[in-house]
């Protein structure tokens, strides 16, 4: 009769687990729905700490980013840097879910976040981005 009792216990345990799964899944769904609202309003800014060799920039200016910012020497970019160490299409900052990502576009001299060379990483408030001779800080 041991086995029969065990079967009974398992029966209930299975039901409990399934509903726990549903509970957590619903919680995730709820949080997600809340976030969708948040996401559409998310804007960050790039503060110019050091303009370096770029003549167009001014120290202390704030570049707002909504959704996407392309950086490079080519004038088709949103943020044009005429520094010699900057490639034509150097990097891109874009929004994914609730985070902003900075992605290096196979540039010659690289993109540095907090003095570390990166290929693709999530940007956090206060991060320092170095492209060529310019230095920016993330304000969000």
């Amino acid at each position, binding site marked *: 009769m041991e086995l029969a009792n065990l079967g009974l216990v398992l*029966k209930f345990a*299975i039901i409990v687990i399934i509903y*726990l799964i*549903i509970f957590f899944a619903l919680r*995730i769904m709820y949080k997600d729905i809340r976030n969708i609202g948040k996401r559409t309003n998310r804007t960050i800014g790039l503060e110019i700490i050091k303009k370096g060799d770029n003549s167009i920039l001014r120290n202390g200016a704030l570049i707002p980013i909504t959704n996407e910012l392309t950086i490079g020497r080519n004038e088709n970019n949103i943020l044009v840097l005429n520094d010699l160490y900057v490639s034509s299409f150097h990097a891109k900052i874009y929004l994914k*879910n609730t985070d902003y990502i900075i992605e290096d576009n196979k540039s010659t001299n690289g993109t540095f976040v907090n003095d570390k060379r990166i290929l693709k990483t999530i940007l956090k408030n206060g991060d320092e981005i170095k492209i060529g001779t310019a230095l920016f800080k993330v304000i969000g």
Partner: protein
Amino acid sequence: MNDIKDERKLLVFTYLLCIMCFFNISIVGNIIDRSALILGIVMCVIISYSYIIIKRFFPDGDKYILVFSSILNIIGIVELYRLNQLLAIKQTLWYTLGNAIFIIIVIVVSDLKAFNRYKYLYLILTIVLMALGTFWGKEIGGAKNWIRIGALSFQPSEFGKITLIAYLASALEDYGTQKQSRKFSIFDSVFDKYLKKYDIHESYKSLIEPALVVMVCLGFMVLQKDLGSALIIFAISATMLYIATSKFKYVITCIILFAIGSVISYCMFSHVRIRIKIWLDPWKYAYSQGSQIVQSLIAIVSGGLFGSGLGLGKPWLIPVVTTDFIYAAICEEFGILVGIAVIILYFLLFYRLMRAAVSAKDNFSRLLAVGYSTMIASQALVIIGGVTGAVPLTGITLPLVSYGGSSLVITYFSLGIVQKISEEGI
């Protein structure tokens, strides 16, 4: 970052569920059934494998699609094992294949939106697949849409749904925009003269071709007596149309046309009349054609809230229990609470799939995601509704849970595509 904790929890629970279910089945007899335990472990391994690949290499995508679909699969395989061990093992093989397809799609497909170029390929494939059943099909269980090749039989109309969605996505993606010119529609030249004469709005033009294709497919489905698929195709088309055009009145037109079509087919085809007759009062025909629904209802109710327990019920009394009526067997053995939980799980899966559509960046992907989500969700609704007597019974399978190689492969294919879309999106 709480998200990761929630993910982990869900994954852990999934493993726990898998182990407990198979353990429960193994102790049903007097001795411990080791093959059940082995099957459980195999399932856990497959789940982990897929999950790890997705997590490590494609972390941007949706992680819950795999979890929810695995849970549904677990419940399905456990119940199948209880009903017929051989089928359960076969189903596990299909499950593995399905997972493999899922992963292959996610890995191999690099630029989904490039696929919108093959609109006419999809069109031809769709028509061919849907027609295959009508002309060469064998009738099994009241629907003439099975093709047998050697030892395997499959339903071409199921594959046809996939290509239909791809076709509709590519046909509708440019609705309302100026990009019409890029796709050369053969109807353009023919209809241009007439449309100019009657001064019909530009955007209708682009809808005529898809509308005709859908109607042709529906026609084939009705001829093949596969009314469930007809209903699903209608649901998919109406939804995709609405998402594409945002015009509710098109949906109303669709519904009206569909209603007219149903009435016509009701008058023309006796098999439609029989289905409706049985649905209205299955108890009157309880010994003949209504016996499926009657036995299904009895099973669902006999389980009580908590079920009779795995292996302790009598689900073999339900006809066609391994495919269409598996929901009744689950309600009997697991209880009606789990039956309701299964419905909720389908909704959660549908939610995750639609979410991928929201985040998609181009229209083609968006429509694809919507199409595949609707396909899975409406299939679940129609068959569970049919099995409980809420809507007339149709011969479609419960995605992921019913036994069925083609069904599993197609569902995982769709899930794979949506997973890819969720990854590309924001």
